[in-house]
């Protein structure tokens, strides 16, 4: 009698691949859970080089709070998820940036913030690298000189969406 109910449980599919058995059982894939946990607690490493660092600090302060997105700025590359290159990259500091990127453990992402990090900006000179993507694999580009904190937050949200769409970046056999 009561056992007949078990064969047709009231599962509700809220989005593709995720089902909820009310009140407190969620059925989903490991991929989704891993991606969700990564994007909700993205810990960037600040590489504030020039003017964009000021807008990054402003985005982190209380007016445009970043902590509500789960973002805590870490000073060490070994403990961070993504590298935010904010400001002009010169040839003298390029080896340092690359070294910091190499020290980050997987999974790692790179955000190029500001026109100078995207393409060199207004400084087309002998000592400026024309864009971070010459020597780093950039995931999100945020243009602007400097980009407003709202634009910066939009860039971070775009990175979060990119992480949400990833497939099997956690798996051993990738």
């Amino acid at each position, binding site marked *: 009698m009561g056992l007949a109910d078990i064969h047709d449980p009231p599962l509700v599919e809220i989005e593709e691949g995720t089902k909820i058995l009310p009140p407190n059982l969620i059925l989903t894939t490991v991929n989704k859970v891993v991606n969700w946990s990564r994007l909700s607690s993205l810990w960037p490493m600040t590489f504030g080089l020039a003017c964009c660092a000021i807008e990054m600090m402003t985005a982190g302060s209380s007016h445009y709070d970043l902590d509500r997105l789960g973002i805590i700025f870490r000073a060490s590359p070994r403990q961070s998820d993504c590298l935010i290159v904010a400001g002009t990259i010169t040839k003298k500091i390029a080896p340092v940036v690359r070294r910091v990127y190499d020290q980050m453990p997987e999974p790692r992402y790179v955000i190029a913030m500001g026109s100078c990090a995207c393409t060199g900006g207004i400084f*087309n000179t002998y000592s400026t690298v024309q864009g971070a993507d010459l020597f780093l694999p950039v995931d999100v580009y945020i243009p602007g000189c400097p980009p407003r904190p709202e634009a910066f937050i939009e860039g971070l949200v775009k990175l979060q969406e990119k992480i949400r769409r990833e497939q099997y970046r956690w798996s051993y056999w990738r």
Partner: protein
Amino acid sequence: MEPLEIAEKIKEKFPDEVVEVTSFRDQVSVIVKKHKIIKICRYLHDDANLYFDYLADLCGADHLNKKEPRFEVVYHLYSMRHRHRIRLKAQVPEDDPRIDTVTSIWAGANWHERECHDLFGIVFRGHPDLRRVLLPEDWEGYPLRKDYPVKGPEKEWSGFQEVLDKAKQFKEFGWKG
């Protein structure tokens, strides 16, 4: 004291060294030869009526094809006590780009001279630590000279070339999407 009076005083004390005195918009420049620059600066620093105790700026200028000699080292001096300014320009030729350092008179000239050496290639004799300051130590060329292109020479600096090679090499180990 008026700037032209200061220029006159320098001219009386060092008549052989002063090449020219020019004036533009109430600012006077005194162009001198480079050989006795320390004596001139010491006189300007110690004399009680002039008392130039503050070196506001020390820079270089390159006059390729416009004037001989090619380089000039420009000193901007200010006196706190008397509140007057003067500009001193020392001519440095291209085939012998060396001039004496004034760090013994104003300690603040240290890094200004290093920058001048870095960007123009002028050597300061007697400087405690003459290395490149703004560009990497093994950079070749002197950027602020007029014959150096803005975008840089064809050949990349070796340090950056290493970064590019390393990036290419490590790309195969990266996450491929």
